[in-house]
């Protein structure tokens, strides 16, 4: 097997504003199974970061344990990385984010890492509206330990060995909306046209952005009867709306038909346009979005796209009124402002 990828690239690869090609956003060659959905998600992250001209060294990628959590090795080699303990990615991300808000935080987790061992961490990161992109590579099984059902497997979904899952599924997207997440989307690893703009919008969102990506496990959960196989997801996929990401430097040039498009402003002057919007529910209304997800669960649809967004939200730094500068850049003067200042503070409590 080839563990090396040739160094040659297409000689006419386009460059982004920073003068980088996609090659500058790549990582090491993947050691996941051939055809793993996670590799496609890595590809979408590479594409999104390149298109947004994010400087790779200004990204921090964090992950837990599992197949999904191996992927940060496979994208953005020049970014900072932290492979944490199982299920503990959110607390490490919280610490890092608190210490330095100038980086873009990208957390990668899997269904075992988030819906089982790390559930407590997951819900609290949402509750605090930590400014992080949280990508869940959701394959409904424990691929690294031979494909046992995970907590996100649907009731009745068949494993490769033929046994049916008997337990109720945890829908992390519904849970995230319920807990007050300000950006919740669902997508499919096999649909990059949808996934790439969603990753870009999530990166531009100024709060907790949750992306539940159904990502088939080709080795253990791509069989007939599984609800997370390539063919099943393709057949049951219902796109909520289409999403266009518009960076500040560009203007919206497409004319969208009236009443079916909605333009939303995100942080940093970025805009997204949701078009072909559904008429029966509203992705800006938490209750209506939750209703739609419950309905979909009843009918067996997989609703994908941007499910819920609250463009203006207050992230953890705003809530805690923290300093702008990264902590490691604060000097002695900032950290020890002198006895006069201390007296002032003490006086304020008297």
């Amino acid at each position, binding site marked *: 097997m080839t563990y090396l990828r040739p160094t040659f690239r297409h*000689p006419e690869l386009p460059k982004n504003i920073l003068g980088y090609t996609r090659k500058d956003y790549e990582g090491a060659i993947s050691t996941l199974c051939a055809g793993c959905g996670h590799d496609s998600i890595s590809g979408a992250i590479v594409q999104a970061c390149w298109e947004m001209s994010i400087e790779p060294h200004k990204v921090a990628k964090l992950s837990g344990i599992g197949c999904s959590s191996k992927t940060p090795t496979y994208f953005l080699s020049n970014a900072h990385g932290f492979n944490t303990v199982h299920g503990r990615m959110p607390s490490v991300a919280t610490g890092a984010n608190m210490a330095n808000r100038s980086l873009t935080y990208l957390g990668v987790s899997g269904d075992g890492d988030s819906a089982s061992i790390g559930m407590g961490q997951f819900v609290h990161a949402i509750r605090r509206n930590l400014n992080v992109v949280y990508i869940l590579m959701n394959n409904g099984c424990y691929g690294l330990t031979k494909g046992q059902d995970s907590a996100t497997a649907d009731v009745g979904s068949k494993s490769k060995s033929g046994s049916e899952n008997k337990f109720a599924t945890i829908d992390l997207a519904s849970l995230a909306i319920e807990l007050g997440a300000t950006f919740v989307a669902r997508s499919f690893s096999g649909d990059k046209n949808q996934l790439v703009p969603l990753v870009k919008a999530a990166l531009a969102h100024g709060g907790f952005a949750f992306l539940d990506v159904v990502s088939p496990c080709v080795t253990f959960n791509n069989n007939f009867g599984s609800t997370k196989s390539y063919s099943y997801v393709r057949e049951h996929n219902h796109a909520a709306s289409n999403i266009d990401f518009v960076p500040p430097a560009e203007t919206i040039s497409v004319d969208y038909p009236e009443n079916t498009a909605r333009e939303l402003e995100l942080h940093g002057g970025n805009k997204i346009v949701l078009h072909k919007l559904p008429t029966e529910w509203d992705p800006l209304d938490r209750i209506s979005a939750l209703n739609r997800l419950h309905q979909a669960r009843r009918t067996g649809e997989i609703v994908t796209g941007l499910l819920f967004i609250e463009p203006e939200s207050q992230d953890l730094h705003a809530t805690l009124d923290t300093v702008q500068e990264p902590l490691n850049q604060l000097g002695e003067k900032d950290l020890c402002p002198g006895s006069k200042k201390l007296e002032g503070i003490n006086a304020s409590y008297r």
Partner: protein
Amino acid sequence: MYIGSSFQQQLNFLPLKPTDIRDPEYFHKVVDCQYACPAHTPVPEYIRLIAAGKYTEAYLINWESNVFPGVLGRTCDRPCEPACRRGRVEEEPVAICRLKRVAADFKDDISHILPKGPFPPNGKKIALIGGGPASLTVARDLAPLGYEIHLYDDQPAGGGMMRSQIPAFRLPEEVLNEEVNYILDMGIHTQFTTYVSSMKEILDKKYDAVFVGTGAPKGNDLDKLPGRWDDPDKIHLGIQWLASVAFEHTDKIGKKVIVLGGGNTAMDCCRTARRLGGEDVKVVVRSPFNEMKASPWEIEDAQMEDIPILNNHNPKAFVTTGGKLQGMLFEKVEAVYDASGKRKLIPTGEEVFIAADEVLVAIGQGNAFPWIERDLGLEFNQWELPRLDAKTLQSTRPDVFFGGDAALGPKNVITAVAQGHQAAISIDLFCRGADVHDRPPPMTNLAQQKMGLHEWIYDSAVVPDLRYKVPHADKKLTLQDRKKEVELGFDLEKAYREAERCLNCDVQTVFSEPKCIECDACVDICPTSCISFVTNGEEEDLRTRLVAPANQLDQDLYVSSPLPTKRVMVKDENVCLHCGLCAERCPTAAWDMQKYLYNTAKAAPLWKQEEVV
């Protein structure tokens, strides 16, 4: 006929049809080097054999296809190298030509493997006029079929221009003799030092067919330039002069020499002059330097031997005093290009005198057929060239065929060989009373390369090495001795490394739609972004919607039939590294690496294919 995808598109204005990979020409075109070679030698196949140390096998593949591997490995015009895919992802192509020489240099004795006469006669007699590469190819292809072959040439030995015009320091005599003799030893009846002065006499001898491979023996002259005939002994036509050096009628030249012309003959003339006593040898060309016809490597070799090349000099007169050549007068010109890119040389008015003891005129050559009577049913066109069917090389007289420089104008050795093969097929068909247009198809084979899980028979890794240089002999020695070969050839270590640079473009990426689950793994892994899954469209539009721009219009798009999501797989063949990663990352083996062997048809198979590969 094979129609490229871009042309097909112009005809249809419709979404692209699925590529028909059963068309023998589709994958052939992907093997750019082989496709560009006039003889379509299976280049990657023999390069792999060289890497594996199988020099004899590599030589035989060449010998079957291009007849003169040792000669061509030193002197070929290398149309394959500019086509080499490596040159599109990196600076320089694989040194294909010099690897061919490695096969010739390091092969074992092969005489026992080659087809050996006497062959059972089939009762037909063929005359070959001229003993150059085209005629010798016809002889080799037809002799094993039992034809009695009579070869006429005015030179004392076979080889034609390979002997008379290519200097020995580029092509040692023993290399040429070896490969010429492989053919002559098949029982060819040779009549050397026999100038054929009448086609009628030949035809009267009742041959079943006659092949004309007399080359382009007429050197262009400046016969109207003032002073041309004042001291004619000091002014020579390049090809005639080279021939007289080769046959040792000439062994010295004056100290100051001007060589006129910018082609490969001019380069051979100036370098030969340096070896015969020319101390101050200059090449003078009318055109700008970058438009010279000579191959870049031959120009470089001339410059390495301290030969200046003066460009933009238009000859005005030969200057003589008292009937003795003093030099030449030139007018400097400037190249001006009009909107259509057409060049005009505009005189600047400045005149330059260059002193010379002797002048070599190497400004092109042409065909001449003064020996063919015009009342034999053989028609000639307005340029006094025979009217031919370009494919069958048959003349208007059905039993007379042409090939090499004599056929469609001067080209090169490898083209002569390719035409020799075609003419041999035509002659054989004609002699059997079959239709000469009913050409046999090429031999093709598509073979799986899978050896195990993610393991291939071929060495799929792509090495980042730059092109290796062929070492040269010491200039002090080579300039002393006209016969001392300048290039030393690769040693085995360098040959291996250079061979490893080959991208194995003949190992094809074969796509099977029913197996594809559209997981995108191949798209994500492909290092050169060749693979896309998109909705189909017209080619022009499709080429803009792929993962990376597909701007090389001569490179085809490999299009699948529609997949379950209504999209199609589109692969831009342009910069595919044939690294096999798409197939390794494919969970369902929808991609497979399969080796495509393509051999043009010959008049007769020389041996069974499985004996070679």
